[in-house]
């Protein structure tokens, strides 16, 4: 196996491509840095000059409004210049290759590339070809990883639960196609969470998922029992009727989070969701809007976490 492509010769974060393979110290450094930025977003002047004069290119080969916007806000609060490129509708349709697109942008003096791509591993390919002073942040690649989402989930859990070492965390739904689930699982196991559960039907579980260090449950009620944290995953529309699932209704019946099922978790359990939510498919509205839900704070924390990641890689 070649050296970890995310780290530079000093073992510092050069690119953020996946949470897998990152040492605990780096994860903690990111979370601590994010905490120091949390105050910034509440100030009247929501800016720090850490990345003044630096250029952040948001390079989205797959459509996304929410993630791109949070990266944009984070970069602007660090005083960086932000360029948004929706590549899925420009160069790619003209037949330009991924690496040619990157080489062209690199010639425009980029410092940080924030990349989203529908193919797993695309940010690794880009990271192998950028110049030494350029940094790549994975904003979601295929089913593989969404590390900043994983980090903001970790941040949220730490914010509400303080200590990772006593937690039971359940991740519910379409684990097979979820980059969010993979990133969060790696983060939780690295930070020492003793029990990580995944809950869903066999059709939505990837082969050998146990090897990631999780317990698999097909019965949601059994899986939720005594959990401290419940993370609901988004179910894509196109997967609701077909060979994987018969219908959204039946999915909700078995794996939708209702108040009734949530009552099996610990009384102070928190409910998370990476968004956008399908109300009535994976989560019932009263739960999404209820006292256990920390779904909106997740979004707020996401900005501080992305500021932390960008400032750390840009400083290394």
């Amino acid at each position, binding site marked *: *196996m*070649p050296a970890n*492509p995310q780290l530079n010769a000093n073992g510092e974060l050069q690119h953020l491509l996946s949470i*897998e393979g990152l040492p605990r110290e780096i994860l903690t450094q990111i979370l601590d840095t994010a905490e120091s930025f949390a105050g910034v977003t509440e100030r009247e002047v929501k800016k720090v000059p850490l990345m003044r004069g630096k250029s952040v290119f948001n390079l989205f080969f797959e459509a996304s409004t929410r993630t791109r916007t949070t990266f944009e806000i984070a970069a602007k609060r660090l005083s960086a210049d932000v360029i948004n490129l929706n590549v899925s509708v420009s160069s790619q349709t003209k037949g330009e*290759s*991924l*690496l040619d697109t990157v080489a062209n942008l690199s010639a425009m003096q980029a410092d940080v590339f924030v990349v989203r*791509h529908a*193919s*797993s*591993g*695309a940010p*690794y*390919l880009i990271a192998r070809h950028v110049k030494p002073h350029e940094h790549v942040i994975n904003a979601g*690649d*295929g*089913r*593989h*990883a969404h590390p900043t989402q994983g980090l903001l989930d970790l941040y949220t859990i730490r914010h509400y639960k303080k200590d990772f070492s006593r937690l039971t965390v359940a991740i519910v739904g379409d684990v097979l196609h979820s*980059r969010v689930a*993979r990133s969060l699982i790696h983060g939780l196991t690295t930070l020492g969470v003793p029990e990580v559960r995944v809950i869903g039907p066999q059709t939505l579980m*990837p*082969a*050998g*998922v146990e*090897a*990631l260090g999780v317990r698999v449950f097909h019965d949601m009620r059994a899986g939720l029992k005594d959990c401290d944290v419940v993370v609901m995953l988004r179910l894509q529309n196109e997967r609701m009727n077909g060979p994987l699932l018969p219908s959204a209704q039946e999915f909700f019946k078995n794996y939708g989070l209702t108040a009734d099922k949530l009552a099996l978790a610990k009384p102070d359990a928190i409910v998370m969701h990476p968004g956008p939510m399908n109300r009535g498919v994976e989560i019932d509205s009263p739960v999404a809007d209820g006292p256990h839900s920390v779904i909106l704070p997740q979004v707020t924390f996401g900005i501080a976490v992305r500021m932390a990641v960008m400032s750390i890689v840009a400083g290394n």
Partner: protein
Amino acid sequence: MTLLIKGGRIVDPASGRDEVGDVFISDGRISDKKEKADQTIDAKGLVVAPGLIDLSARLREPGYEYKATLESEMDAAVAGGVTSLACPPDTDPPLDEPGLVDMLRRRAKALARARVYPIGALTVKLAGERLTEMSELAEAGCVAFSQANVPIADTQVLWRALQYAATFGFPVWLRVEDRWLAGDGVAHDGEVATRLGLAGIPAFAETIALGTALQLVRATGTRVHFCRLSTAAGVELIRAAKKEGLPVSCDVGIHHVHLSELDLGYYDSHCRLEPPLRSQRDREALAAGLADGTVDCAVSDHTPVDENQKQLPFAEAEPGATGLELLLPLILKWGVQRKLPLAKTLARVTCDAARVLGVQSGRIEPGARADLVLFDPQQTWRVVPAALKSQGKNTPFLGYELAGRVRTTIVAGSVVYQQA
């Protein structure tokens, strides 16, 4: 024209002969006469073996000349010690018409390097719907019929194609994979694919299709050669089928003998192969099956791909690896690992392959075709693009140091390659 190869270590896998001696060649054939030769090659310190017979090498003509040309790949073949090769029909257009086959054979013959044996398409355009004119194609020079990497999904068509081929005694070569189970998969369905977030191809995509094909062999009596087995369970099915006496044989791609899913590393697109690299257990079963003869031969599955098609995210990269020049060192590496005598190691790429192909090559005895390779089994070399004659530089072994370098290749008694 006579040629004397003097003082080499003669290794003839067919007879098990392994001794130092001379080989005399007259009129393109090995002779037991001892006359004064027109030309003498000093083979001291070299192994003199039958030229390699590779059952799967894509020459990319017609249709894919930007990936490779007949010239470049025939140079690669003889530089790799390959003196006979079978080329699969997945050219563009596919080898489904006698005219195309005829042209390919003429072009290959004019180059006067390795012998080329075209495998005809089993169905028109490899679409899995209409049978090709197999008799016409056989007359044009096709030695077998195949679907390359495009399995026939409709079992009615597969059944009829096997029946029809059996009628005329034509062998059928199949790479078995259930198309629906393979889906859009690009890697072995297991822990590595799960970690990397790649769509998986389960092992039973191979064994289910293999089970179906074996039932059809039982029903039709067709001689079927199964190409590129990739799973331990597949090897087991073949072992049982052979024990039962079914007329089947099989091969494995040389990459699958040495590599597993773990070699994907961080999305190394050179490891994007068809079938996918599977688990270490599968790799071990393939390497062991090749040793005990359940797997008849190893092939390069040579597939030159241009660099642009590999510089892509893993799932989008074009599958395949260059292999003609790596077959010899990689089979030697396998033989050393399994502690096999050299004659047995080489059998899997010479006389055993000749048997599957149904040709009179792959042995060193009086009267046999003088297709030979002279190589130094100890000489190591680094696999770098500049060291490869093939236009395809795409191999998972880039940067590796391998032992076994070809010095001289002889086809029909003429030297067609001499190491510079």
